[in-house]
């Protein structure tokens, strides 16, 4: 009961205490509320910050990783490119070396071939020499020809003049102008005059210079030599009287050497012989064997006839249709004879080969 008494004692102040406590609590409530809010907000902030930190760390981690990956890729590309460029440079350099050699070779061999050029120039010199020599020869030949023509013309002129001036020839009594007695031998013109036939259209019995050269006319034994160098005529020459032909001409005719034509000169058989000889030589050369060529009939006398395949096989030519028109098999015959035909055989065919004569049967 004491407790109750105590409680009742306190009861009076309870309302105030209750009110006082509530009041103080209410007054502190705001402060406490604010403090609580502060604490909570700070704590929440810490938490969030911690979370943010965490996130940041994660993000950094991811970004770091990602960036590293990108850079490594980039780096790899760079390395590959650099490697590629290095290789290409190397190849280019090697290609340059090859091209350098090849171009040098090609140009030196085909475009500016020094040795070929040298040989060509030497060949040109040689060719030029040849051409020059030939042209020189040709020019010389032409010159010679011209000179010869000139000479011939002059000769002809001189001969013509000599023939015209034949009267200037020296006679027995009077030496001509070209045949002065004080000279050792006559002038060439004198000789020319002697040689030439007088130029006139009338027939004249001019003394031909050959008269002086002969020995005595009736006792001339050996034929005179018609030499061109003529001595002075001997002064006491007696020429034969009378209308004889002059001796030189006669002797020329008499002792004229034989000039047979080609046909006469060659032997009678000569062309044929020559041709035959040619042919014989050719045949002798062309012979492959020495068996003489025999005519047909004797050639095949001893040869055995070897039949063609068509005939020689067992399926060769059938006699049916040629020898008989019915099949016969003698092996099957009972007797030696064939059966008799029921029908008569065809008469026409019996007469085959027997109609006129038996000559055809030889064939």
């Amino acid at each position, binding site marked *: 009961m004491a407790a109750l008494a105590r409680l009742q004692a306190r009861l009076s102040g309870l309302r105030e205490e209750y009110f006082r406590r509530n009041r103080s609590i209410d007054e502190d409530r705001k402060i406490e509320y604010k403090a609580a809010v502060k604490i909570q907000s700070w704590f929440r902030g810490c938490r969030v910050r911690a979370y943010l930190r965490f996130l940041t760390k994660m993000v950094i981690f991811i970004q770091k990783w990602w960036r590293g990956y990108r850079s490594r890729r980039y780096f790899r590309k760079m390395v590959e490119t650099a490697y590629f460029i290095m290789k290409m440079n190397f190849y280019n350099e090697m290609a340059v070396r090859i091209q350098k050699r090849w171009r040098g070779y090609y140009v030196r061999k085909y475009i500016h071939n020094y040795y070929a*050029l040298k040989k*060509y*120039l030497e060949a*040109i*010199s040689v*060719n*030029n*020499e*040849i*051409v*020059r020599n030939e*042209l*020189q020869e*040709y*020019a010389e030949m*032409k*010159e010679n020809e*011209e000179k010869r023509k000139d000479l011939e013309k002059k000769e002809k002129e001189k001969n013509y003049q000599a023939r015209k001036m034949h009267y200037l020839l020296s006679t027995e009594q009077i030496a001509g102008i070209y045949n002065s007695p004080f000279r050792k031998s006559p002038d060439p013109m004198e000789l020319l005059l002697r040689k030439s036939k007088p130029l006139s259209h009338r027939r004249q019995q001019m003394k031909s210079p050959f008269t002086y050269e002969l020995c005595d006319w009736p006792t001339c034994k050996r034929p005179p030599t018609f030499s061109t160098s003529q001595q002075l005529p001997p002064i006491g020459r007696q020429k034969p009287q009378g209308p004889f032909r002059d001796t030189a001409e006669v002797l020329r005719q008499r002792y004229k050497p034989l000039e047979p034509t080609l046909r006469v000169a060659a032997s009678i058989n000569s062309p044929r012989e020559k041709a035959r000889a040619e042919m014989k030589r050719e045949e002798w050369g062309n012979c492959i064997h020495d068996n003489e060529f025999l005519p047909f009939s004797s050639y095949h006398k001893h040869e055995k006839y070897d039949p063609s395949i068509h005939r020689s096989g067992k399926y060769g030519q059938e006699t049916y249709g040629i020898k008989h028109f019915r099949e016969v098999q003698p092996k099957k015959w009972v007797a030696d004879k064939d059966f008799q035909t029921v029908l008569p055989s065809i008469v026409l065919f019996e007469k085959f080969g027997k109609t006129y004569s038996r000559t055809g049967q030889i064939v």
Partner: protein
Amino acid sequence: NSGVISLLRPLLLDVVPTIQQTAALALGRLANYNDDLAEAVVKGDILPQLVCSLSEQNRFYKKAAAFVLRAVGKHSPQLAQAIVQCGALEMLVICLEDFDPGVKEAASWAIGYIARHNSELSQAVVDAGAVPLLVLCIQEPEIALKRIAASTLSDISKHSPELAQTVVDAGAIAHLAQMILNPDAKLKRQVLSALSQIAKHSVDLAELVVAAEIFPVVLICLKDSDEYVKKNGATLIREIAKHTPELSQLIVNAGGVAAVIDCIGSCRGTVRLPGIMVLGYVAAHSENLSMAVIVSKGIPPLCTCLIEEHEDHIKAAAAWALGQVGRHTPEHARAVAVANVLPTLLAMYMDTRSSEDLQMKATLKNILQKCTYLPALEPLLHDAPPNILKHIVGQFSKVLPHDSKARRLFVTTGGLKKVQEIKAESGSLLQEYINTINNCYPEEIVR
């Protein structure tokens, strides 16, 4: 004189044929003498009468009438035009078909003189159908007729490529080529001239001429005793050589260069000119051909031509040819320089009388720009004018830095002294060259 012509005109219509012929002959000789008389003949209306009566007359009249036409037509193009206008060409072509070779000769001579003047008249001749008949005339046996026909073809084809093509289409080249070896000198002249007139127009025509196998036959003509045959032969070779390097190569391979060089050596005067030009054209195409000319000993004759000849155009041609030979490489320039021809060229260049200094200048420049043969350049240092001097000094400045023996020689022969004496504006090319030369030597010597 005009009185005579009006007197002769009625005689042309006389009954007696001898009078007609003699009258025509007289008119022809009058017209032949002078071109005033020829004009008077034309004005006196003679030509139509001649032309009309030509067709029914005998061959003497035809010959005389053709002679008149030739005499009138040879003086000037206007007179020839007058002849063409009165229809004489058809008559002349009919005369070309006559049997008598004298008539043919007179007719083709007249046609030749007409066609010679200009290309319109040649075209008129071709249009009248003369070319195939002329080609037939060439094949005739008479030499005089062949000569005249060849000269007529040459006159026709010289004006233009189309006319030359017409002549070629008529098959003239083969016949002309066959006649090159004919012994008659005048015929050879005309034949070679005809072929060269054909070949000169274009590469195709030249190749056609070459395809007729004229080489090496033409080279024999270069050794002929007649001067003009040699000249025309060289002209033919020149017209062929000038077109392409391949044709020049053909000529070189056939030994043509040697023959031409011998020909130059044996002739004097204008006859040499085509031969010189052959060498120039051949050497101009390429350096191998130029070397072939040098190897065939072409430079000494050219030098002698340069020195001996008096005419300006021949000297100019020789200088041009030397320039073409020497301009390709230092080797070629050296070959030219060794022949000691540069001082001559320089003297000719500086000679104020000469008119061809352009040629000399170009030659000297071409040779000097490639010449590295210093002993030949030294004498030129002393008398050259400034524009040539710059090339000479330039060459020295190219060679001296690399060759010590040459440097020594340069000093001992007094060349360095001469170079110092040259005054040049600073900054000009000459000054640079001089500086290069001076840099090759130590300072004391330069002072």
